[in-house]
């Protein structure tokens, strides 16, 4: 179970972003964003790649991207999650159980879409680059020829 403070924070962020999305979509009456769907998908995305120090907004972006696809794979996937968790709010399901449910669906098309979308979104962000010490696009700074491409310092000790 995610602790209460974190749960409140997650709900608050998700609702804030959801309402912003709803406002920007207000001209299109046929598009609605279910806050609970957003919440669930963001939470599942986090379960797949739980990087604690990344801003949660990134996982919400994954959820938004998935919902924007308007793909039955997503709606069916959500239905599977709800039925597997007895229609409990996903973030209220204990972690061990969430992992178990996800493991059971790990070879499904929904899972594959969730996984690839999560990677596509979060593994290209400046926050992730900082987290893993990756430099991103190198051309603007003249590559790495003068920025440590050969500066390894621990090899001598183990050679």
């Amino acid at each position, binding site marked *: 179970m995610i602790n209460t403070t974190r749960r409140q924070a997650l709900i608050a962020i998700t609702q804030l972003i959801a309402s912003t999305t709803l406002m920007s979509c207000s001209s299109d009456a046929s598009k609605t964003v279910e806050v609970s769907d957003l919440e669930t998908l963001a939470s599942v995305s986090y379960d797949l*790649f739980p990087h604690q120090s990344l801003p949660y907004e990134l996982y919400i972006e994954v959820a938004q991207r998935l919902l924007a696809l308007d793909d039955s794979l997503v709606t069916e996937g959500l239905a599977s999650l709800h039925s597997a968790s007895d229609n409990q709010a996903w973030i209220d399901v204990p972690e061990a159980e969430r992992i178990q449910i996800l493991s059971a669906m790990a070879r499904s098309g929904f899972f594959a879409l969730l996984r690839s979308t999560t990677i*596509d979104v979060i593994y290209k962000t400046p926050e992730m680059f900082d987290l893993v010490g*990756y430099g991103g696009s*190198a*051309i603007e700074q003249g590559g790495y020829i003068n920025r440590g491409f050969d500066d390894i310092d621990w090899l001598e000790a183990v*050679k």
Partner: protein
Amino acid sequence: MAATYDLNDESVVVIIGSGAGGGTLSRQLSINGVKVVCLEAGPRLTLGDIVNDETEMFLKLSWLDRRIGNGDAPDGMPVWSCKTVGGTTAHWTANCPRFREYEFNADSHYGDMDDTNFVDWPFGLDEMAPYYDVAENMLGVTGTNNIPLLPPSNNFKVMEAGAKKIGYTDIDTYHMAINSRPRDGRPACLQMGFCSSGCAINAKWTTLFNHIPQAEQTDFFDLRAESMVTKILMDDEGKATGVRYIDNNGVVKEQKARVVCVAANVVETTRLLLNSKTEQFPNGLANSSDQVGRNYMRHVMSQIFALMPGEVNMYKGTQTAGVIRDEVRHDPSRGFSAGFQLHLLSLGPEQVAKTLVDNGWGKNYADLMENYNKLAGVILTGEDPPQVENRITLHPTETDQYGLPVAVVTYNYHPNSIAMMDYAEDKARQMYESLGATDFFTIRNFGATHNLGTARIGNDPATSVCNSWGQTHDIDNLFISDGSLFPTSGSANPTLTIISLMLRQADYLIESLENGSI
């Protein structure tokens, strides 16, 4: 300047594809005054279109149309080739080994291997050496022509240290078509690390920014990009008369030709030959041997990554400039025939996240990803036995957006290859372990970048598709001009050999056109 030839000009040579094969042949023919129409399915990019972004460039460069993988070839994307002017030289990482002498005599040298279709090449290294010389100079291959080897990166230093610890000695930063200093109008490598996304500064050689512009400087080269050839046209006498293609506006056109050269990389070359069947060639063009599409080889390949005790930052530097050659010999005492090389490999974090562990996810995986900068990597390339049942075929019902049957890529490992992979992966593991690595990852069965063998050369028309020049046995004015020609794969990266074969083919074709034998 670039030429424009009429669709009804029967005197042109049509070259299908603008990559290592098609681009080289185009250049050689046009600088010798032969009129060339080069039809390339993909778009023509400029240097500004090339950015340091793996995913963006993957989408811009790759052949993304559906191919179906079967057996050990992954279903979704069995082959990773390119659809762009420059062909697969757009994403190649520029490794340029020569075939060794014994690799041209694979059958004699390795002896019998059950369930394989090994043959000797119809010529050897002495024949190819002068062409290798020219190609290495053209490409500016490091370690040849007084060109210094590239400097060693962190990832290389780890590989080298581990290799030496387990007794390997033949190690250096490899023969690379990447400038170590400015040469031939191209800058020196800045070690940006996005080689397989296209080199954004043109330090890495490609046909797009070298052979193609050189061809265009003559008055004999007409390149038509975004032009998908759908059929090779034949007359009733069994001669190729031209090609049908869909141009960049979606209009179907037919270009007449004196000679047709197919350089569309293994999958599309096979598709074209099979799809162009006629009453006279009911099994596909030039397929009296039934070998078209067969003997498909992709090199035995496996990626090995290790979690090292300190930072490596493998992304800082070229992706593959480093090689260990000690195991390239034929030595059955190791439990398999033929040899392999290990060469350096680095991937960006996105690609690592996608592939390091099959379907990897969860807390442990995220923790692993957060240690990305401690990963070091190598990749195995090894001799891949030709097997008749490894082949490219046409799907019986599924068609693509051009209305053509989708290609099915069937590939199964030979037991020799599995033994080789097991051995090589274990060696790589020992290398990294000797330096204190704590965790190891191997990736097999990914989209093949070395695709060979499906229209092999040989002296016997019963067991080969083309003669030693790449001229099809069955149709005098139909040539194959890409990696499909290889009767055996050798141990490592094929592009230098493809280019050298094309230099040789060009000599023969130019002479044949001049003396009227074609």
